């Protein structure tokens, strides 16, 4: 398995290790230039590991602000957001594409930022939970999440909010089933599923009545 990391006897595939391999391969295919990270797509030997990791520069926007960053090719988007841009509202729950806590919007579409490499963000627009409130005013969804007690421990909340934001942008009048389908990739172990769906429906209703009043 190219680029994967295994502990002896363990069946755990490291998400970052896997991405490091596949992502680097994609970058290499895309750039095909001298900067492509030779050797990163093969199982690293001890010597290669000891060398510094390949880096790329990448330019994208986060919540409207342009970011020019020099990133290691193996850095995931969620790592860059949390560790390098200080946007810790996006959470890491499983780091293997199961739970959805790390959901952010990339060009308006919800993606798992734990399973997305930062280098793939070139030219893209990323939106995180920190970008939902506008001018200090909470979005209708954030307000509805508060009023409907949608967060319990709050750890999945950012992901639920981002996936819901994407849903309401493409479907302002969802049914409960629409909401459940759109949020199926966002687990809540507090299992506050009923309240989260109620909050999204309430936000949609609020937006409708606000729109009607204009």
């Amino acid at each position: 398995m190219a680029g994967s990391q295994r502990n002896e006897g363990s069946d755990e595939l490291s998400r970052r290790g896997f991405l490091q391999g596949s992502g680097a391969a994609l970058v290499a295919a895309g750039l095909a230039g001298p900067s492509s990270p030779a050797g990163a797509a093969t199982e690293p030997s001890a010597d290669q590991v000891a060398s510094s990791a390949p880096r790329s520069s990448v330019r994208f926007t986060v919540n409207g602000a342009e970011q020019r960053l020099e990133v290691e090719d193996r850095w995931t988007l969620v790592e860059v957001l949390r560790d390098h841009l200080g946007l810790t509202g996006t959470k890491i729950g499983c780091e293997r594409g199961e739970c959805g806590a790390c959901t952010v919007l990339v060009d308006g579409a919800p993606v798992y930022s734990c399973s997305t490499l930062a280098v793939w963000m070139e030219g893209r627009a990323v939106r995180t939970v920190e970008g939902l409130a506008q001018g200090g005013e909470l979005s209708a969804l954030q307000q509805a999440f508060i009023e409907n007690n949608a967060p319990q421990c709050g750890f999945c909340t950012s992901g639920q909010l981002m996936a819901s934001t994407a849903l309401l942008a493409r479907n302002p009048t969802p049914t409960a089933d629409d909401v459940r389908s759109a949020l199926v990739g966002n687990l809540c172990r507090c299992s506050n599923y009923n309240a989260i769906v109620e909050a999204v429906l309430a936000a949609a209703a609020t937006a409708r009545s606000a729109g009607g009043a204009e």
Partner: protein
Amino acid sequence: MTPRQTAPSAGAAQVQPLQTVGRNVPRIDAVERVTGRATYTRDVHLPGMLYARVLTSPHPHARIASIDVSRAAALPGVRAIISHTTHPDIVYGSGSIAGGAQYNDEAKDRTLHKRYMFGNPVRFVGEPVAAVAAVDRHVAEEALGLITVTYEELDFVLDVDEALEPGAPQIWPEGNIGLNGQNRPLPLGGRQGDPDAGFAAAAHVLEGRYTTAFNQDAQLEPRSALAHWEGDKLVLHTPTQGISNCRHDNAKDLGLEDHQVQVICQYMGGGFGDKNGSYYFDLIAAMLSKETGTPVLLELSRKEDWLGTHGRWSTVQDLRVGVSDDGTVTAIELRCRSGMGPFLRRSGSVSGIDAYACPNVDRQIFPVHTNRVVGGNFRAPSEPQGYFPIQSIMDDAAYRVGMDPVEFALKNMRRPTDQVRFTNYSMEECIRTGAELFDWSARWRPTPGSAQGPVKQGAGFSFMMFRSGVGPSSAILRVDATGRYTLFVGVTDVGPGAKTTMALIAAEALGVPLDRVDVVWGDTDRCPYSVGESGSRTTIMTGYAVVEAARGLQRQISERGMPRGDAVLIASATPNPSTQGRQRLCFGAHFVETEVDVELGHVRITKYVAVHESGRILNPLPARDQIRGAVMQGIGMALREDLLYDARNGQPLTAGYYGARHLTHLDAPRIEVTFIETDDGYGPFGAKTVGEAGIILGPSAVANAIFNSTGRRMHDLPITRSRLVQELA
């Protein structure tokens, strides 16, 4: 809006409306929770901090012959590597507390089955073997792959009954039965009344073997710890449900005084149990930080968390119940083996039989060691896996004697007697209210499995009583000249909203608006002792301390007037109330309708009514959602969650949300919650347990509904499609 009924139950006064509590109040930190500003452990970033990862055992049972770290140490960026060879004698005390004697320092010292920060031999897949601190997490992760561990594999055992057979692999020299606090392999339980006579008098004797699976707590925040030292003082950010107990455990294990450890946890991404104390990763982070002289953030991966921490212990239970022709339960016998993994972190007990009044009971519960993951506390630690068997066999008993299960329950359930007294009792009211709201008589089928066609409807129910005991905790309240009140409480906020609840109680007790109360929480250097958010104790115990502190402050204000200038008034309270020998319990009844596709084995929950008496409800919306969420977890336990092992090599196969098949939005039915409110005069304004109570009945109520739908009794959790199809074939 959650329906709330305020009928007085036996022994309790009708609830009188209050100013602040009892109304829907958004959490005081709600904005932080929806904007990403709430700070969880991994969100804390200290300058220069290192990242740490743990290497875990790939074998279920093995002796470590050698650990070669030379290649890892040579990797640029690696700062420290520790293992049992560098730190052989740090006992992870709360990982091996013997007999469930929680926070019992003596038992920790005395136990023969000590667990160390790094063990040798290793006794389960996922046990820590070594740890690396490096300049970033990628380097730390790479370094793990460069550590060469030579293992001598040992025979392993996964099954509790095989572990008890002669010649089974010995996980401990003393054998595979868990030792109690006196290092003796004695079962929990006991004998009361005359079970032999009870069975002899029975017209019907029912028997069954039931099994329940390991369920990971699976909180969404993967565990981690950020440690640094200020001189000889350890500062520890760690996701814990109880900062006070976490501090004490860590201090004891590291040979420090309590005041030399500061534990900080304000937000926690889900508790659900077994985090009211220290964890091995706290100790490892502390030691790595000591080695490097630098702050160290240790992160567990989801899989390391799943295997390395704890979940609800599995059980195998043989039950026997005697019933007379008139439907009176005459005797109950339980033989239970609880799968604790190799360390006895918690008791391994099971509950539920106490919900019946039957005087003749014989229970033997053996905590058994295996080479699976360690069993621990998960929301109502011994209840759902105990209620599932007893409420299943009682359901069978009702059909056997031709009674409606609800009538059978009303006839046999525990009620107050001269010997067993309660602060109040509302079991019957919960059952009758639930039956009416659910329309039990219309949905339940006297003949199970009688619906026509392949998709069969049916209904089941279950009932429970659960602890709401009072006890000691502390609170401090301060008022300044501007009339702002500051409440110091040692709670964290794991999800139920303890911080808001404490503020509500203070505002009510002081008679001031909620927005005049600030809360200082989640830091042992700033907050007094709290029992921690486990065992359904925070609202009742710490909440009552808040009430007492408020009374003390009001006395001061009435005697001395409000403070002026820079002066403040401060009151503290550490009450230790008592119910004078009376049991204080909460009560609940759940009614479930299922549709079972008998060809595909698919179960759909079409109606779920949960009725609870949890005393006075302090904040209705979060209380409702504690029940709804807990019910959902109970349904997951009933139908989905398991940790499967490959019997050939001892490897866990389903560690993770996907493998364990946790419920998603699409699997979540609508849960209808009703509270019957009472005020028994104890706790803060009569509040009782909410959060744990809701998970207890899901497995039994769902299983009974499946029986009513199909006519088949499912004895094993989870009730998967494959098990159903096999049973229905």
